[in-house]
């Protein structure tokens, strides 16, 4: 299940970061997401070495931590989308699909005239959409 989703801006500043656990461990995810930016940089800077198909938005598994897997997606406008999941093995296709919906949600949020590009996303609608996406992925609060 997805425990954390994040949108990170062009300046690598967090635009939106939301964790879906009940535990008081939110900061942990900030660290994880933030570090995953390194991996994204690496992947983008030398795509072939890491066997990413050139310029594909979906970056695949960035890295696993002890308890999580971190997936990445980089839009054409250098917006990064990051998923933290607990699942051991996920089908790329599924994750890709999640990201696509996720991106779509972002694009609409970004189209809100009152959303200034590059700023944190506070749109409730967006949050709503995101959590529904997450839920649809079978996210259930950890007991």
């Amino acid at each position: 299940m997805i425990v954390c989703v994040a949108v990170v801006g062009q300046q690598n500043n967090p635009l939106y970061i939301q964790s879906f656990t009940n535990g008081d461990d939110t900061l942990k995810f900030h660290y994880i997401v933030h570090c995953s930016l390194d991996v994204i940089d690496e992947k983008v800077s030398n795509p072939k070495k890491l066997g990413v198909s050139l310029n594909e938005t979906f970056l695949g598994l960035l890295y696993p931590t002890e308890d999580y897997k971190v997936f990445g997606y980089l839009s054409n406008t250098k917006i990064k989308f990051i998923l933290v999941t607990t699942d051991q093995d996920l089908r790329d296709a599924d994750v890709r699909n999640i990201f696509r919906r996720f991106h779509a949600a972002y694009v609409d949020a970004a189209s809100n005239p009152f959303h200034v590009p590059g700023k944190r996303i506070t749109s409730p609608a967006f949050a709503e959409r995101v959590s529904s996406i997450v839920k649809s992925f079978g996210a259930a609060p950890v007991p």
Partner: protein
Amino acid sequence: MPPNSRPGDAVFASVDRVNAELFTLTYGAIVRQLLTDFEEVDEVNKQLDTMGYNIGIRLIDDFLAKANITRCSDFRETAETIVKVGFKMFLGVTGTVANWNTDNTECSLILDDNPLVDFVELPETCQGLYYCNILCGVIRGALEMVSMRTEVKFVKDVLRGDDVFEIRLKLLEQVPEEYPYKDDE
């Protein structure tokens, strides 16, 4: 509906159309810029209304021509036309007219959707903003060109949590045509 005026969707089908995104976003950007320029919401509402007015006085001709309307002297029928033909022809949406007052000088134009507000979420800082206020201006301007002085304002706004957009339309007077040159004749 006035005689021999074409039905709204026919007109809409006939006019040049563009993807609404550009329009929606442009309008949004303008509103935001105005908000940054004049920090007061009321001032922005005013500005939007003025802009609408200026648009209206031009747009009316486009409308009459495309919708093939040769005369509109009856207020009731005019209101209908706005909602059924006007909104449809320009915004691709139709609404309804409701809440006529007894002497048929006031009514509500009701839209449950309009392309201006796609993607829009009002930040709490902008309470009191009538996001679509430009529409009021347009209607006012257009009607003035067909010699109806009106007062147009939003009373319901989905963005503010209402169920529909409701524009209150009030006819102040119908200006009769008179000979401008007093000197001779």
